[in-house]
C-alpha cells in the first residue's frame, strides 16, 4: 500500500507555521507530514495542486453531533430524515439521513466532504458519556473528542462551595479520565439545579443556587482555577448565563471579566456561540446587537477566545444543556419540546426552530454572529461555528466563510432581511473581509491551538497528522470578494480530503471508509489527594446515583481508537 503522498505546487495556508499562500509542496508518509527529503517522489502518489489551495484539515471544536440529547433530537425529528438521503455505496460509504440531526454516518461523510477532519462534541453528561463515545465511534473518518458538562455536577458544586479547589481539581481529573473526556464544559453555570424545581430561566451570574451555597460566578472562577491547576489543554468552555435573553451581553462581559485576574499570558476562558449571548435591548421587539461591546472587550484582553454560533436561515434544531432556556423557547414555537435530565449532573432541552429572514429577531441574530467575527481584530481569538445544529447545520460553513470573505456576499443576504432590523445593526457598514489565511486560522489553526492539539492538528509542518484539505480555489486568479460563489462551491466539496495520510475524499465524494481517534485527557494528580477525593466521592455516590461507583468508569477497550493526552496536573 502506498503510504507516501506528495502534494505539489499548491497555495499553502498554514498559519501555525506562518505560511500565507506560499506555493509549496507538502509531503506525507506513514500518516504524518514529513520533510520533503523523506519521501521518494517516484514511489509516492503525486497530487498536482497547481492553482489550488492546500490547508490543514478543518477542526470543529463545537458541534453537537453525538450523545444523548443529539440522539433525542434525531428521535423527535423523523421529518428531518425522510427526504435528506445519503445512499449506500457498499464498501465505500454508509447510508444515512438528516440535515439538522444527521445520522452519524452522514456527519462523518459531510464533514470530510468539506475538508474537515476533526470534530468535538462540546457537551455531554458524564453518566451518559458512554453513549456519546459509542456514537462518535460510529461517526466515520473524523478524529474526535467530548467536552464534559461539569457546572451543575453535585460533586463539583460541593467542593467549590467550600472553596476546595485542589479537591475539585482532583475530582475533575478523575471525571475526565473516567468519562474519557477532553475538557470542562460549562452551560449556563449551575442552571440544572434550579431546573429541578422548574426554575432557572434568566439565572444571573451572581444569583444563588440553593441548596448549594454558590453563585454562577463562583462556579466559573472555581472551574477556571481547576483548569489552570490541572494544566488542561483547553480552557474552560463556557455557554454564558442568560443565553438568548435580550440584554444578556452584560452578563457575557461580566463572565469574561470574572476570570480576567486568573489569567497569566494564557487564554483562560472560551465563550462559546457568543452570538446568542451578545444581545442588547429589553425585549424581543427591540432586540439589539451588542456585538461591538463584546468585540471591544475581547479586543482589549488576551485571555478570551470565542466561537461564533452563526445562525443560518432555514431549519435548525436547538439543543443545549440550558434546559430552562429551551423550555422558554418551546413556548414561542409551540410545537415540539424534548426535555432531559441526568441525576446529579445536568439537564437539557431540544426544540426545533426555523430562522426567518423577515423576522426582526432572526435578522439581528444573523448579523450579530458576523459582526463579532469581523469586529474582533485578532482571528486567533475567533472560531467559526454555527453551534450545529442550534444556529444551523454545519454543512452551511461554506456559506459562512463566503460571508466573512466577501462584503458583497453579505449584502446579498442583507437585502432580503427585515428592514427594521437593518437599521439597528452595524453589519452593513463593516467593510472588513477575511483573507484565506484568516479563514484558515478560524477553521483550523486557531481551534487546534485552543484544543492544545496544535502539535499534531491544524498545521502542515513536519510531525503533524497528515490531515489535509485541497480546495478548488485559485487565489492568484480569483477575486474572492467579488466571486464569493467560488468560495462556497470550493468549501462545499473538497478536491481532496486526506485523513491520517489516506485519501478519503476525492472531488467531494467519499472514497474510503474508516474510523478516527478519540482524544481524551489524563491529568496527573498526586496519589494521596486522589485517594482522599475518591473516598469522599464513593461515600456520597450511592446516595446520589442509581448505579454503583464501580460501573461509572468507561474503559479504554470500549473505544475504537482511544488516544490519551497526558497533562501536568496537580
Amino acid at each position, binding site marked *: 500500500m502506498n503510504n507516501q503522498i506528495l502534494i505539489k505546487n499548491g497555495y499553502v495556508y498554514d498559519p501555525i507555521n506562518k505560511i500565507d499562500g506560499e506555493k509549496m509542496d507538502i509531503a506525507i508518509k506513514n500518516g504524518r507530514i514529513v520533510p520533503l527529503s523523506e519521501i521518494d517522489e517516484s514511489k509516492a502518489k503525486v497530487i498536482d495542486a497547481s492553482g489550488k489551495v492546500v490547508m490543514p484539515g478543518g477542526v470543529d471544536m463545537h458541534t453537537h453531533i*453525538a450523545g444523548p440529547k443529539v440522539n433525542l433530537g434525531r428521535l423527535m425529528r423523523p421529518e*428531518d430524515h425522510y427526504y435528506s438521503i445519503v445512499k449506500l455505496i457498499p464498501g465505500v460509504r454508509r447510508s444515512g439521513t438528516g440535515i439538522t*440531526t444527521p445520522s452519524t454516518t452522514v456527519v462523518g461523510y459531510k464533514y470530510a466532504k468539506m475538508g474537515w477532519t476533526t470534530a468535538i462534541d462540546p457537551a455531554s453528561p458524564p453518566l451518559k458519556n458512554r453513549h456519546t463515545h459509542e456514537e462518535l465511534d460510529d461517526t466515520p473518518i473524523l478524529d474526535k473528542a467530548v467536552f464534559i458538562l461539569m457546572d451543575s455536577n453535585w460533586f463539583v458544586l460541593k467542593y467549590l462551595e467550600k472553596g476546595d479547589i485542589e479537591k475539585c481539581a482532583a475530582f475533575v481529573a478523575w471525571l475526565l479520565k473516567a468519562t474519557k473526556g477532553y475538557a470542562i464544559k460549562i452551560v449556563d453555570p449551575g442552571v440544572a439545579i434550579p431546573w429541578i424545581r422548574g426554575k432557572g430561566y434568566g439565572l444571573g451570574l451572581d444569583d444563588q443556587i440553593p441548596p448549594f451555597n454558590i453563585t454562577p460566578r463562583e462556579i466559573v472562577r472555581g472551574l477556571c482555577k481547576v483548569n489552570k491547576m490541572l494544566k488542561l489543554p483547553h480552557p474552560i468552555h463556557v455557554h454564558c448565563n442568560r443565553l438568548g435573553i435580550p440584554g444578556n451581553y452584560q452578563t457575557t462581559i461580566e463572565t469574561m471579566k470574572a476570570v480576567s485576574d486568573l489569567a497569566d499570558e494564557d487564554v483562560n476562558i472560551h465563550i462559546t456561540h457568543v452570538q446568542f449571548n451578545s444581545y442588547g435591548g429589553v425585549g424581543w421587539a427591540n432586540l439589539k446587537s451588542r456585538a461591538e461591546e463584546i468585540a471591544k472587550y475581547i479586543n482589549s484582553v488576551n485571555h478570551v477566545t470565542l466561537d461564533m454560533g452563526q445562525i443560518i436561515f432555514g431549519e435548525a434544531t436547538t439543543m443545549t444543556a440550558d434546559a430552562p432556556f429551551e423550555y422558554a423557547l418551546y413556548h414561542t414555537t409551540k410545537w*415540539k419540546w424534548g*426535555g*432531559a435530565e441526568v*441525576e*446529579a449532573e445536568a439537564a437539557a432541552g431540544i426544540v426545533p426552530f426555523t430562522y426567518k429572514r423577515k423576522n426582526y429577531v432572526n435578522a439581528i441574530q444573523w448579523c450579530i454572529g458576523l459582526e463579532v467575527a469581523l469586529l474582533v481584530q485578532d482571528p486567533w481569538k475567533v472560531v467559526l461555528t454555527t453551534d450545529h445544529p442550534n444556529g444551523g447545520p454545519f454543512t452551511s460553513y461554506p456559506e459562512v466563510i463566503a460571508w466573512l470573505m466577501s462584503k458583497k456576499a453579505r449584502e446579498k443576504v442583507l437585502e432580503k432581511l427585515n428592514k427594521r432590523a437593518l437599521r439597528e445593526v452595524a453589519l452593513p457598514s463593516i467593510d472588513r473581509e477575511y483573507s484565506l489565511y484568516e479563514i484558515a486560522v478560524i477553521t483550523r489553526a486557531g481551534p487546534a491551538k485552543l484544543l492544545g492539539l496544535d502539535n499534531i492538528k491544524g498545521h502542515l509542518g513536519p510531525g503533524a497528522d497528515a490531515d489535509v484539505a485541497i480546495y478548488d480555489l485559485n487565489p492568484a486568479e480569483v477575486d474572492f470578494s467579488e466571486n464569493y460563489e467560488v468560495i462556497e462551491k470550493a468549501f462545499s466539496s473538497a478536491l481532496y480530503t486526506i485523513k491520517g495520510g489516506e485519501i478519503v475524499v476525492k472531488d467531494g465524494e467519499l472514497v474510503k471508509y474508516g474510523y478516527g481517534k478519540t482524544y481524551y485527557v489524563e491529568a496527573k494528580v498526586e496519589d494521596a489527594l486522589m485517594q482522599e477525593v475518591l473516598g469522599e466521592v464513593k461515600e456520597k455516590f450511592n446516595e446520589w446515583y442509581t*448505579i454503583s461507583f464501580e*460501573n461509572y468508569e468507561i474503559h479504554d477497550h470500549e473505544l475504537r481508537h482511544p488516544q490519551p493526552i497526558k497533562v501536568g496536573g496537580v
Partner: protein
Amino acid sequence: MNQSKIEVTLVTGRTIDQGVAIDKGKLTTEYYEKVAIIELDAEDLARLGISENASVEVSTKFGSVVVRAVKSKFKHPGVAFIPMGPWANLVTDPYTYGSGMPTFKGIRAELKVTDKAPPTQRELIITNFGIEAPSVEFEEIETQKPSGEKVYTSVICSFCGCLCDDLEVKVSNGRIVEVKRACPLGRSKIAHYLENRVLKPMIKIDGKFVETSLENAIKKTAEILVNASYPLIYGWSSTSTEAIRLGVELAELLGAALDNTSVMCHGPTILGVQEVGTVAATLGQIRNHADLMIYWGCNPFHAHPKHPARYSAMAKGAYVKTRKERKIIVIDVRETPTARIADLFIKVKPGGDYELIKALRMAINDLDIEVDEVSGVPTEKIYELSDIMRSAKFGALFFGLGVTMTKGKGRNIEEVIKLVQELNSWTKFVLMPMRGHYNVVGANMATLWATGFPFAVDFSRGYPRHNPGVTSATDLLLNGDVDAALIVASDPVAHFPAQAVKNLTKIPVITIDPKWNLTSLISQIVIPAAIVGVECEGSAYRMDKVPLRLKKLVDPPPGVPSDEEIMKMLIREIKKLKGVSA
C-alpha cells in the same frame, strides 16, 4: 349461575412466572404450566361454573386457544389475563392499525368450558402453523476452568430495562453457583444460564436438526440472506449494543428490513415522541426528587420487580428518602400487585386511556369536562387527580404496555407526553417509559444514530426509510412481504400474533440465540450465541438511556461465539458474496 359461555375483555402481558420460565427454557414443562393459562377473577370462574385448573377455550375474532384456568388473587371481574406467549398470540389482534404494534390488550373474547387440554409448545406449532417442530436434546454442560472461586460485585443484570447493577455473583470452577440480590427474573436468567442452550450451529435437513460447523452455518446464512429479495433482520433487544451496531451495518448491506422488539413494546412511545417530543429524566433524578409517582398501565412488581425499591415508590432518594414522603397513584384496567401499594388506585375502562388522559388535560388546563364520567372514571375523581398532579413538587409518570398496546397505541402516548409537558406549566413533571428487555433501548439508540430512525427501518432502496405500520416487522410478516428472516436475540414465534408467525414459517429463517426457543424450532439454521452480561461483555442501555457496561463472568460453552463475533463473520461473508471490498 353457570353459563357455558361468558364474554370478557382479554389482556395479555408479562408475569413473573412467565419471565422466570423463559430462562429455564421455552421448551420446558414449566413454561407450559406458567404460560398456557388464563387468570380469571373468582366471579368469572363462578360464572363459568368451573374451578381452578379446568380447561377453558378462549375465542376472539382472530382465533382460539385452549388454556388452563387459574384463579386470580386480585379483583377484576370481566377482565381476563393470559401471560404473553404463543397461547395468548393465537387470540390476540394482529393488526397494528398503522402503528407497528399489534393489539395485545383490550380484546373482546368469549370463554367456553372445554375438556381439551392446552396444547404443548410443539403441538401448538404443528397444529397452528402446519410445520414439524423437531424435538431437541439438551446436554449437561461441563465447566471446570478456570479453577477456584471468584465473587463478582456490582454485576449488571441483563433481564429487564432496570439494568440493576448491584448483583453479586459467585463463580466456582468456571461455573456460576450463586446469585445474590437479583429479582426472580434476573436470578432465573443468570442461575439457569446453562439450560436449554444451543451448543452447536444446527442446520435443518429433512425436518431434523443436524450439527454443522460455524463456518458452514455462516456461509449458508449469508447465502439465504443475499438470495432473498427482501429479508427481515429482527430482534436485537437482548444482546449488546456492539452487536446491534453491526446488525445495522448488516441490514444496510443486504438492503433488508431492520426492526427490533420495541415495535411490540414502546414503539408507540416513540411515535408519540416523534409528534411532540418528551420530558425525560434519569431514574436517579426521579428517585431523588419525586414526591408524586404515578404508575399508568404498568405492573412493575411483575415486569420490573426491583423498580419500586431501587428507583421509585420505595426507593431512598437524596432528598425524598422514604415511601411516606411520596404519594403513589396507580392507574390500570385491573387491580394488579402494583395497585396494592397505591395511595390512590384508579380503574380505567380497557381501551379508554386516551379519553381519560384527554379529560385529565382538560382538568389541568382548567377547562370544564361536560360529561359525568370518562372511561369509567367519575369526573370528580379526574379533577381530584389533576389537583394532586398540579400540586406535586416533582411528579413522575411511569407508563407501560397497558398504554402502548391498547387501542390508540402511539396516540395514547402522545397524550401522556402532552399531559406531562402541560403539567410543567404548574410544577416539575417528567415521564418514564418502562422499557421491557434489557437492551431494547440500545437497539433503538444504535439504530437511530446510524440511520436517523429508531426501529422499523427499511434499506431496500439503499438508504434508511421508516414508516411503522408499513416497514414494521409485525406488518411485514402479517402481510407476507418478506422472503427470508434473520432473528437475533428474540423469539417472534412465541411473541408475535399467530397470523404473522404463520407467514414467518413459510420463509427461510435463521435464528441466533443462546437458547432453544420456539423460533429456533421452525428455523432452517440455528446459531448459538454467548449470553451478554454473563459470558461476554457488552454495552446496554437502561430504560432511562443510561448506558452500562455488562460484565463477563464466565466463559461461554466451548465454541460458542458472541453475537458481535457472529455479526462480523456474517458481514465478511456477505461482502464476499456481493463482491464488496472489506
